[in-house]
C-alpha cells in the first residue's frame, strides 16, 4: 500500500524530471546562440582588423600578392583570396575532421566570409574559429541536469521523511489512538491539541463521532439490561399462574400436558432473558476478573453437577484434566463458560456418543461427535445458531465469547476427524 506522502512525492519527482528534461534543449539553444553570436563578433573584429592593417601597410601590388600568399600559408584557418566582385558578408557553421590530431574526431567551426578592397583589388577573407561541438554541449548540459535532478530527488526524500516525522506526527498519533479504541471497554478517547487546523478539526469530528457511538452503545446496553429486568416480573407472574393452574381440580390429561408445554417454553424465555442480562452485565464490566480461578477444580465440579445429564444420554466421557491449572479470572463467569460449553456438547450429542474434555496448561478443549462442520462465522454470535425447535437459547456460545473477551482468552471452533472441537486458549 502506498503511503500518502509517497503519492505526493511521486508527483513532485515526475514534475521536476519533466522540467529538468525540458531545460536541456533550452540551455543548449541559449548557450549555442551565445557561442555563435560571440564568435561571429570575434570573426568580424579579426576580419576588420586584418583589412585595416592591410590598408595601413600601403603595400604595392606585388608585395600585396606575396603577403596574401604568405598569409594563406601561415594561417590555415583563414583564407585571403582575390574575388571577382564585392559581396555582402556571410556566415557559416561547419564540422570538419581534425587534420592534425585525428583522434579528436570532428571539430566544429564558425566561419565569416568578408569582402574588401585593398589597392583596388577585391579580396575575400574567410575567417574560421573553433566552436564547441553541439553534442558535447548537450552531453555536458544533460550531465549537469541529471546531477541536479539527483540532488533534487535526494532533497525530496529527505524533506519528505522529515515532514512525515514532524508534520504528520499528530496524524499518526490520532491513528494509533483510534486503532486502540474499543467500544466495549468504554474508555473515551482524548485527542491532544496538535496546533494544526486540519488535525484539530479531524479530532473534533472524531470525538463527536466516538461520543455518539459510545452513547448509542450505552443506550443499547442499558436497554437490554432494563428490558430484561422488566421482563422478570411478568415472567414470574406467568410461571406462578401456571403452577396454580396445575393445582386446579379436576385436571385432565390434556390440560396437564398443555401446562407442561407452556412451562417448557416459558423456561426457554426465562433463560434467554437471564442470558441477555448476563451479557449486558459482562459488557458493563460488572465482573471483576482478579480472582484466582482453579479451572481444574471447577471443571471437576461442573462434571459432577452435570453427571445426571451425561448419564442420561449415556455419553462416553473421556477426560484429561491437568491438576492445578489456576488462572486469574472470575469464578462465576468461568463456571458459566464451562457449563455452557459442556451442555452445548451434551445437547448436540446423540446417546452413547463420545465427549472428550482435555484441560492442559494453555488450553481447554471440549469435543463431541458430530456429522458435519458447523458454520464457524455464526457459531459464537448472538442467536447465530438458535432454532425455534430446540431448547437452546442461541446465546450460550455468545456468552462464552464475551467471557473469553473479558479475560483475554481466545475461543475457537474446528471440525476434526468427526468431532466438533471447541477450544479456549490462554497464554
Amino acid at each position, binding site marked *: 500500500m502506498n503511503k500518502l506522502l509517497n503519492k505526493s512525492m511521486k508527483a513532485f519527482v515526475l514534475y521536476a524530471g519533466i522540467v529538468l528534461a525540458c531545460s536541456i534543449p533550452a540551455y543548449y539553444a541559449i548557450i549555442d546562440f551565445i557561442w555563435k553570436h560571440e564568435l561571429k563578433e570575434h570573426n568580424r573584429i579579426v576580419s576588420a582588423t586584418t583589412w585595416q592593417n592591410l590598408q595601413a601597410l600601403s603595400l604595392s601590388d606585388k608585395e600585396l600578392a606575396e603577403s596574401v600568399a604568405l598569409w594563406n600559408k601561415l594561417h590555415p584557418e583563414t583564407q585571403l583570396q582575390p574575388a571577382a566582385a564585392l559581396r555582402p558578408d556571410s556566415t557559416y557553421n561547419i564540422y570538419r575532421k581534425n587534420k592534425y590530431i585525428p583522434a579528436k574526431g570532428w571539430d566544429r567551426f564558425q566561419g565569416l566570409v568578408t569582402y574588401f578592397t585593398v589597392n583596388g583589388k577585391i579580396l575575400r577573407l574567410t575567417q574560421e574559429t573553433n566552436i564547441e561541438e553541439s553534442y558535447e554541449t548537450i552531453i555536458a548540459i544533460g550531465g549537469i541536469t541529471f546531477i541536479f535532478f539527483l540532488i533534487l530527488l535526494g532533497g525530496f526524500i529527505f524533506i519528505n521523511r522529515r515532514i512525515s516525522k514532524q508534520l504528520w506526527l499528530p496524524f499518526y498519533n490520532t491513528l494509533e489512538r483510534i486503532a486502540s479504541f474499543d467500544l466495549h471497554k468504554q474508555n473515551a478517547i482524548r485527542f491532544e491539541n496538535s496546533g494544526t487546523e486540519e488535525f484539530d478539526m479531524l479530532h473534533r469530528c472524531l470525538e463527536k463521532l466516538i461520543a455518539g457511538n459510545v452513547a448509542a452503545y450505552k443506550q443499547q446496553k442499558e436497554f437490554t439490561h432494563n428490558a430484561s429486568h422488566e421482563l422478570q*416480573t411478568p415472567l414470574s407472574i406467568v410461571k*406462578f399462574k401456571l403452577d396454580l393452574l396445575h393445582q386446579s381440580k379436576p385436571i385432565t390429561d390434556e390440560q*396437564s*400436558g398443555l401446562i407442561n408445554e407452556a*412451562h*417448557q417454553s416459558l423456561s426457554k424465555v*426465562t433463560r434467554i432473558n437471564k442470558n441477555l442480562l448476563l451479557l449486558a452485565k459482562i459488557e458493563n464490566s460488572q465482573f471483576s476478573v482478579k480472582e484466582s480461578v482453579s479451572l481444574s477444580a471447577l471443571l471437576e465440579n461442573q462434571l459432577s453437577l*452435570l453427571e445426571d445429564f451425561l448419564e442420561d444420554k449415556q455419553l462416553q466421557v473421556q477426560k484429561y484434566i491437568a491438576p492445578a491449572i489456576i488462572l486469574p479470572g472470575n469464578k462465576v463467569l468461568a463456571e458459566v463458560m464451562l457449563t455452557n460449553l459442556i451442555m452445548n456438547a451434551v445437547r448436540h450429542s446423540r446417546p452413547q456418543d463420545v465427549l472428550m474434555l482435555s484441560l492442559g496448561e494453555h488450553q481447554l478443549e471440549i469435543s463431541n461427535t458430530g456429522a458435519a462442520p458447523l458454520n464457524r462465522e455464526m457459531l459464537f454470535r448472538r442467536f447465530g445458531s438458535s432454532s425455534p425447535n430446540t431448547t*437452546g437459547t442461541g446465546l450460550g456460545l455468545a456468552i462464552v465469547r464475551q467471557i473469553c473477551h473479558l479475560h483475554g482468552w481466545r475461543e475457537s471452533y474446528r471440525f476434526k476427524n468427526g468431532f466438533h472441537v471447541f477450544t479456549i486458549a490462554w497464554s
Partner: protein
Amino acid sequence: MKLLVIEDEIQLAQSIISYLSGENYTCEYAGTYQQALAKIEMFEYECILLDIMLPGGDGMRLLEEIKKRDREEGIIIISAKDSYEDKIQGLQTGADDYLAKPFHLPELSARVYSIIRRRKFNNANVVRQNELTINLLSKTVLVNTTPVLLTKKEFDLLLYFIGNKNKVISKNALAEHLSGDIAGMLDDHNFIYAHIKNLKKKLGEAGCANYLKTIYATGYRWEV
C-alpha cells in the same frame, strides 16, 4: 402458621398467597416499605418473604430492621436480582434463603417449609408422616424402623414433596429444583424419572405406602 409476603407486585403476591394458603399457612400481605414495617412491629410471623426491590424504601434496610428485632422468624428474599453479589449480601445481612425470580411456587413452598422447620426446632427436627420418619439434620429416613438409604438428590426430592403435600408438581419444577437453569438446556427431563423411580422403589421396598402419584406423565403429587 403465619407468613408475611412483602411484595409490591400484587399479582405475584396473590399467587404466592393462593398457593401457600392451601398448606396450613395464614398469609398476610404488605405492598410497601411502610406497610411492611407496621406489620412487623405489630405481629410475629413464622416466615417472611421479602422482595428487596420495594417502592418507598430499600428492601435491604427492611431486612436490617427485621433482624434488629431478633425474633425467630425465617426470612426468604425473593428478588429479580440474581447476581452472586446480591445473594451474598442478602444472606450476610441475615436472610435464610435467597430465591431469584422467576421461580416455581413449589420451590418457594419447599423452602418455606424447611426454613420454618429449621428455625422452630433448632436445627434438630424430625418430620413424621405415618410410617415415614425424616431427620432433617442427619438426613436419614426411616420407614417404621427400617432405615432407607437415599442419595442426596433422592432425599432432596423427598423433602420437596413433603413441603408440597397434595400439590401437583410439574416435571419442569422438579428439574429446575435439582439442576437450576441447566435443566432447561435439554429437551427432555428423563433424569427426573430415574431419580423418582429409585426413590419410589427404595421407599416401597422398606414398606412405605405409595404416596407419590404420577399425574398424567407430566407431574407428580405427594398424596397424604
